[in-house]
Structure formats: C-alpha cells, structure tokens
C-alpha cells in the first residue's frame, strides 16, 4: 500500500528536483567558465599579438590579420635566444640536480633518525625559510666578485648543491609518512643508514623527489633577480628571464609583436612541463601547504 501511495502522492517531485539540480549545475558551470575566461584571456591576447604585424599590435585589435608566423623566427635573429635558452637549461637543470642530491640526506636525517639536537636543527632550517634574500646578497656578491664568478652562472648553481630549506621541508613531510617498520626491518637485516636511505626511502619517495626537482627547475627558469644580479654585466651568461627583460629596452619603444612572441617562446616549455607533470605538481603544492 505504501509503495502505491508514494507513487500516486508525489509523482512530480523527482522531476522538480532534477530540474533544480540541472539549473544549479548550469549556474555552477557558468561561474566556473566566467572565471576560466578571466584566467585564459591574457594568454589569448599574448598569443594573438605575437602573430600580428608591428602596426597592428599597436591598434588594440584582437584578431591577427594577417598572421605573421615569422615573428617567432624574427626573435631568433633579434637576440641570441639559443644561448639564453642553453644558459637557462644549464642553470635550471644543474640546480634541480643539486637541490635533490643535497636535500635528500638532510631530510632523511631530520625525519628518519633519532639524535640529540634534531629538533633544534629542524627549527633552524625552518627559520631560514623566512629569511629575505636581500640580507645575504651584499657579502655573497662581494665573495663571488673575489672568486671572479660574477658574469657566470656559478653563483646561481653552486649554492643549490648545499641544501634548500623549502625542499628539505617538502621531503621531510613525505618521508614522515613512510612507516617506520620498513626502516626497522632493513636495520634488522643489517642495512646501515645510507643503505636504508638509498634502497628503501628514496624509491618510495619518488613522487616527492620529483616534485622537489621540478620546483627547483621551475624556480630557476622563472628566476630573474639572481641572474640579473650575478650575470648582469656579461650578456653571454644571461638567462631567458634577463634576456627577455633586456629585449624590451633594445629599441626606444617596445616592439610588441616580437616581444610577445619571445614571451610565448619563454613560457611554452613550462606550460608543456606542467601538462605532463601536473599531478606531481599539484601533490607537491598541497603537501607543503596543508601539512606544513
């Protein structure tokens, strides 16, 4: 009887609920798309401008007419883009390697071993996170000057082989999630700490290590202040960031179409990396943020 009552008494409800849900869903997507347009529009404008003639890029128009694909090759003849790219890849690649190699053992000692003073060292590492770069640059600049390293990439690369607080933090957070039993089992089998680190922890922590390497790479790719300060005097050592900034001041007024083409070439590699490594990336950001 009750089943009959239900179907006869409220035959319209499901349809109404479905309609309300559909409306709600449309509203949600409309809002999400509006935000999406706000985030996407600058990309589209930059890309369109990169394809315009110089004349048209000053007109405020949106659609390129005609399409000038040669702007991209023009950039290569205007500036030594290949050299800048090589410098950037060398800086980013080596500092990623340096960061990973130097931070794994530190994070391991902090998170997987017990020893007196561990807490104090950890707090010291954390406190360096807040240190503004400005408070160290003058003496470092003087030192690198004495070493005749200014005008080369060495002041940028060498320090990355000596640990970095943010990367140690990220690795530590991940190492702590690995069950202690695995280390204990390896210890009973006679493994020393070095072996446990390289054979047990590192293979399990691959996602975190990938995130740390990726972040270090992207940081260096993006870095403007470091290369400006240490390589500024020698254009042969410039990275893409410094080269692109200087590109705008080579002419009296900025040539927008080729400047935007250069900007596109500069951002394409990181955007591609992002699409391939998105999961590594998002997990890494979340790991530092939520549990930090």
């Amino acid at each position, binding site marked *: 009887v009750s089943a009959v009552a239900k179907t006869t008494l409220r035959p319209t409800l499901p349809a109404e609920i479905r309609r309300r849900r559909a409306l709600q869903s449309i509203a949600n997507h409309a809002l999400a798309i509006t935000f999406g347009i706000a985030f996407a529009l600058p990309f589209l404008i930059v890309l369109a401008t990169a394809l315009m003639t110089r004349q048209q890029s000053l007109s405020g128009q949106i659609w390129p007419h005609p399409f000038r694909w040669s702007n991209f090759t023009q950039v290569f003849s205007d500036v030594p883009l290949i050299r800048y790219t090589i410098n950037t890849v060398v800086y980013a690649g080596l500092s990623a390697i340096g960061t990973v190699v130097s931070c794994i053992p530190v994070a391991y000692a902090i998170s997987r071993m017990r020893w007196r003073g561990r807490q104090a060292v950890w707090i010291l590492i954390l406190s360096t996170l807040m240190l503004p770069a400005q*408070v*160290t640059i003058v003496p470092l600049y003087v030192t690198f*000057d004495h070493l005749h390293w200014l005008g080369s990439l060495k002041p940028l690369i060498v320090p990355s082989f000596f640990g970095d607080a943010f990367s140690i933090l990220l690795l530590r957070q991940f190492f702590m999630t690995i069950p202690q039993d695995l280390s204990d089992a390896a210890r009973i089998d006679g493994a020393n700490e070095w072996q446990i680190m390289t054979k047990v922890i590192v293979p399990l922590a691959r996602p975190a290590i990938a995130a740390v390497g990726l972040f270090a790479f992207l940081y260096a790719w993006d870095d403007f202040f470091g290369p400006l300060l240490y390589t500024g005097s020698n254009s042969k050592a410039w990275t893409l960031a410094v080269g692109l900034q200087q590109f705008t001041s080579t002419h009296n007024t900025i040539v927008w179409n080729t400047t935007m083409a250069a900007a596109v070439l500069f951002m394409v590699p990181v955007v591609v990396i992002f699409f391939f490594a998105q999961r590594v990336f*998002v997990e890494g950001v979340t790991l530092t943020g*939520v549990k930090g």
Partner: protein
Amino acid sequence: VKPKSQRLGRRTTVLLLLSPWAIGFLLFTAYPMIATLYYSFTRFDLVNNPKWVGLDNYRFLLTKDPLFWQTVRNTLWLLIFMVPLRILWALCAAIVLTRPNRGRSFYRTLYFLPTMVPAVAATLAFVFILNVNGPVNHVLHFLHLGQPLWFQDPRYAKPALVLLGLWGVGDTMIIFLAGLLDVPAHLHEAAVLDGANAWQRFRYVTFPSISPVVFFSLILGMIGAFQYFTEGYVASRAANGSVGAPNGSTFFYPLLIFHKGFEGEGLLGDASAMAWMLFVVIMIVTVLIIRSSRRWVFYQGGLK
C-alpha cells in the same frame, strides 16, 4: 647497550648526512648575514675597503633620504592591498572550483596555468595588455569609460600590478581547494539542518576549517610582498624606461636595495642597512601574525 664505536659511527653518519645543509648554512646564510650587519655600519663600495661610519647609514636613510620612505610606503601599500586581495581572489577561485561536479580538473588546470608563466613574461604581457592603446583600453573606449594610463600613471601603476598578481594565484588557490574539499560534509549538513544560510555556513563552518591554510598563505604572501622585486622592476622599465617609475610609484623597498647597492653608486653600506631593517621588520610582522593567529586559526581537534 651499544658499543662506543657504533654510537660514534652513528653520530658521524648524522653529521655526514647533514653536511650539505650545514656547510651551506654557514657559507650562504650565517656568514653573509653577519657580514651584512657589519657592512651596514660602514661606507663600502666594491673598490675601496669598508670604512666604519657607525650609525650614519641608518641615520641618513631614516631621516634624510626621501626615496627610502617612498619605498616603505609603496611596500606597505602592497601589504595592505595586494596580499589580502590575492588571498580573497584565490579563495573565490577555489570555491568556484568546488561547485561543478564534473570538469573540475579541467577548470583547475585552466586556473592554475597562469601561475606557471615566468614572472618576466607575465609582467610584459600585462604591460602590453594595459598599455595606452592596448586591448583593455580599447574595450574601455568602446564602453565609453575612462582609459587610464595604467603603468604610466602613478595612481594606476600599483593597481595594475595587483591585476597581474591576481592572474597568478594558482598555488594559493590549490592549497585552498585542498582545504575546502577536506571540510567534513557532515558539518555542512548539520548547519543546513540548523537553518544556516550560505554566508553563515561559510563563516562558521568553512572558514574555521580552512583557517590554518589561510594563515599559512598570509605568512607566505606577506614575506613575498616584502621581497616584491621582479614585477616592479620589469613593469616600470618596460612601460617607462626607468626603474620605479612613474614618479617612484613602483619603487618598492627591494628595488631600492638593488638600486643603491648594485645599479647606482655602489652604496653597499646603505644597501646592507636596508636589508637588515627589512629582515628585522619581517621577523616582527611574522611574530605578530603568529600571535594573532591564536585568535582566528582553528586547528583540528584542538579547542580554542
């Protein structure tokens, strides 16, 4: 009880594992910090040896140098406007992301993408987008609205930098999104049953749950604002041809450190004094925020 040799071996192991960071800390942090403090009491350029002048650099900066206070005001402006607006915008974007049932990862990728763009490229993009005859002014003209000079107008240069800052909030947004998705659904359901409206649910359920994340991004945003350099440098040079222009409206504190120490006359003593003052202020503000956090940050499981 372990034999002594083994304990010694363990200590050596720890020291070896820590050595990359320990050496780096001494060479690239501890020594430079102390040296900067020393240089701040000297007149010093790269040619001549440092000459002790006591508090002269500090006295000059604080009482005689008009540029100093202008850069302080500009950096304060960033702290007051840009930092909260970025957090608010990131929170809005994250909330918008939680709404659709399908397509969330597509939207998330789209919203995050600008964060990947290198700062120099993003800044130049905005200098173009907001140039006098650029696309934004084109639209404003079409709508019969005023067309500001943006990066070339002292009143609009910093707001233009805020727009640039809002474009790349992806990392904060991702952290907020994770926090929002972690809010237990039963809390929302209970609030709905109690008749709470959308704002009340946000204020009394969502916000307390994500307040640790807001706190974290506030500290990071604050530290970032104190060190804000690249966007200001690139935008002012691209739009006006000189650093900090127009009228010093984008001359931020770190720009002046760089300008004094490495671009102009090589006043490394002044630059060092400015750097130490920046360091001390960051420490004080951080402590203040941590103090205040006890009142508005709620940690799971812990009652206030």
